[in-house]
């Protein structure tokens, strides 16, 4: 794979050029934190951040997304027919996404793009993206990406990996989309392949060594599902939970949504909104029965989904990239790393000696 050297003095001009080929998105300082925002001409992505407060998932799965519109006005030709809402799926480049967020899209894709079902909204939005990752030199102490199948320089899911060497950027092309991005930017100084690669390898190692928190996931798959489900520790894990949606909403891999119709006067839209397994309404049946009516059931569901059901269903690791957002933002400090440890180490025989 080719590696290009981008002098920082050429950065602004390159970004400027990219506006002609793409809609640009990047991390923007919103005061107390950074988030992904559409960049307007003249704006630059701001790389002075550890990670964005919210993940990049809203770029393909926005919190509220209109799917159809309809009219109830019988004088109109198409009345009472759901019509696709027109959307802009032209090429979009995301400059400065962290490798964990890019990898997260691949985890979510297993659910939205299967041989049986293909979610047209998610897929079209995802396919419109060119993901230009920003390697992480200073992973946080809440990051555990290296044991979640990811890493601070992880390339899977990215089209370009951008590495800040202080003096200049190294841009490693990973896909054809990445190649086109570089062409559109006009950054065309190829490095001597070995030199660049070596430099990246050294920095990658240094970054990985900074991650001191490791989680063990090796035994999750073999655990008996029912035994884990019935484990005694759930009551203790769930006690402090206030059942807000913070963990699920800041998570790059939580994908659940709820479909709602909203009519105003004679016209309306059918939309989907993020939903959260932490909310009692999430599983409330039309009959009034709620199979997950208790907090402990909802907390268990979140962790069992990420760390057991997903593992079993896809046999490709946990449904978590170790970004640490839920660890940092949970109002009561429920820590997925601790729960993962409890689950991985759980032995029902030790709990109930015969």
């Amino acid at each position, binding site marked *: 794979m080719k590696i290009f050297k981008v002098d920082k003095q050429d950065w602004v001009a390159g970004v400027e050029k990219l506006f002609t080929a793409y809609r640009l998105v990047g991390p923007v300082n*919103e*005061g*107390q*934190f950074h988030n992904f925002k559409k960049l307007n001409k003249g704006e630059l992505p701001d790389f*002075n951040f*550890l990670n964005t*407060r*919210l993940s990049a998932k809203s770029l393909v799965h926005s*919190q*509220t997304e209109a799917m159809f519109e309809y009219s109830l006005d019988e004088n109109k030709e198409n009345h009472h027919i759901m019509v696709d809402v027109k959307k802009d799926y032209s090429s979009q480049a995301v400059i400065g996404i962290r490798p964990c967020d890019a990898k997260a899209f691949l985890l979510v894709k297993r659910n939205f793009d299967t041989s049986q079902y293909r979610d047209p909204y998610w897929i079209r939005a995802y396919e419109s993206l060119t993901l230009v990752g920003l390697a992480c030199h*200073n992973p*946080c*102490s*809440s990051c555990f990406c290296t044991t979640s199948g990811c890493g601070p320089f992880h390339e899977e899911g990215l089209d370009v990996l951008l590495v800040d060497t202080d003096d200049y950027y190294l841009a490693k092309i990973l896909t054809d989309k990445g190649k086109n991005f570089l062409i559109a930017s006009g950054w065309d100084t190829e490095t001597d392949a070995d030199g660049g690669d070596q430099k990246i390898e050294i920095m990658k190692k240094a970054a990985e060594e900074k991650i001191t928190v490791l989680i063990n996931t090796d035994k999750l798959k073999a655990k008996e599902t029912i035994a884990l489900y019935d484990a005694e520790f759930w009551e*203790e894990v769930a*006690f*402090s939970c*206030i*059942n*807000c*949606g*913070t963990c699920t*909403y*800041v998570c790059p891999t939580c994908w659940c949504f*709820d479909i*709602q119709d*909203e009519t105003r006067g004679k016209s309306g839209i059918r*939309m989907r*909104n993020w939903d*959260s397994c932490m*909310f*009692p*309404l999430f599983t*409330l049946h039309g009959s009034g029965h709620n199979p997950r009516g208790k907090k402990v059931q909802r907390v268990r569901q979140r962790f069992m989904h990420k760390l057991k059901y997903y593992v079993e269903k896809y046999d490709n690791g946990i449904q978590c990239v170790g970004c640490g957002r839920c*660890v*940092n*933002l949970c*109002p*009561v*400090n*429920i*820590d997925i*790393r*601790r729960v993962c440890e409890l689950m991985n180490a759980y032995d029902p025989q030790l709990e109930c000696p015969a």
Partner: protein
Amino acid sequence: MIDYSEKIKEISKRLLEEGRVDIVIGFKKGTVPMMNEPCLVKSSGEVEKFVWDSNCGINLANYLTGRNEKTGIVAKGCDSRNIVTHIIENKIKREQLYIIGVPCKGMIDKHRVAAMFDGEIKVVDEKDAKIIIKGENFEKTLDKESILQSNCSICIHRNPVLNDELVADPVEEQRDVDRYEDVRKIETMKPQEKWQYFEDMLKPCIRCYACRNACPLCYCPTCFVDEHRPQWVGKSQDPTDLRTFHFLRAYHCAGRCTDCGACERACPVGIPVRQFTKKLEKDCLELFNWEAGMSLDVRPPLDTFRPDDPDDFIK
């Protein structure tokens, strides 16, 4: 603070061993800086978990809803006022509780402290009234008073108003505090300015409901935003629905809010939601001379009628 922790452990151990209580609710050490986690202890062997420092900002009264055991609960000033509110709203019985009172000098504002440093904060220690903050390339010692949660810096009820035992002598209460400087500023704004101010304030909201759920007052079996037959409020990010949630939530707290700050502490996107509840608190004070949760013997203004209730607002 170490003394407080030891004392909490000692009292809890005694209560559990003597059978005075079945459980004790307190805090255990968190896994990230400036965070402790609410925890429940059932036996005297577990009391070593308990900790107390300047990171116990979550209001533990929130964990009383629906409990029917004899319950020991660690309570700082604001928690105790919310316990009083729980009792007068018939959510829990006084006899059921053993309140371990903690005289409090305020909690650290974790959002503000995090925003003060460029790099990641790795360790936060405290010694006396100083907070020592360490990151990879920095170390700074700050006066605790300068980094308090904003509700704590204007708190005038630091000592528990209701308790069965205190872990230490009462602390001196803050006097001559101007609690409503910010509210007055908003009151003087023109309607359009006010509207814009609240619009900007709510912009980052992701509707996770952390503010609502961290609040000890929000114990409705089904919140109005979750009601679906009929569905009062839309579920999307439509600004009208967002506003409706925040405005109504605030009104439901009128005459009940103790300004404990749990809502702001819980918010993952830094919205100063107390701007709503404080106005109502100020109104209750000015109109009814009422402060929530101060006494078991007086009914709150919004569930009583007095012939001399102010009625100037009726035109």
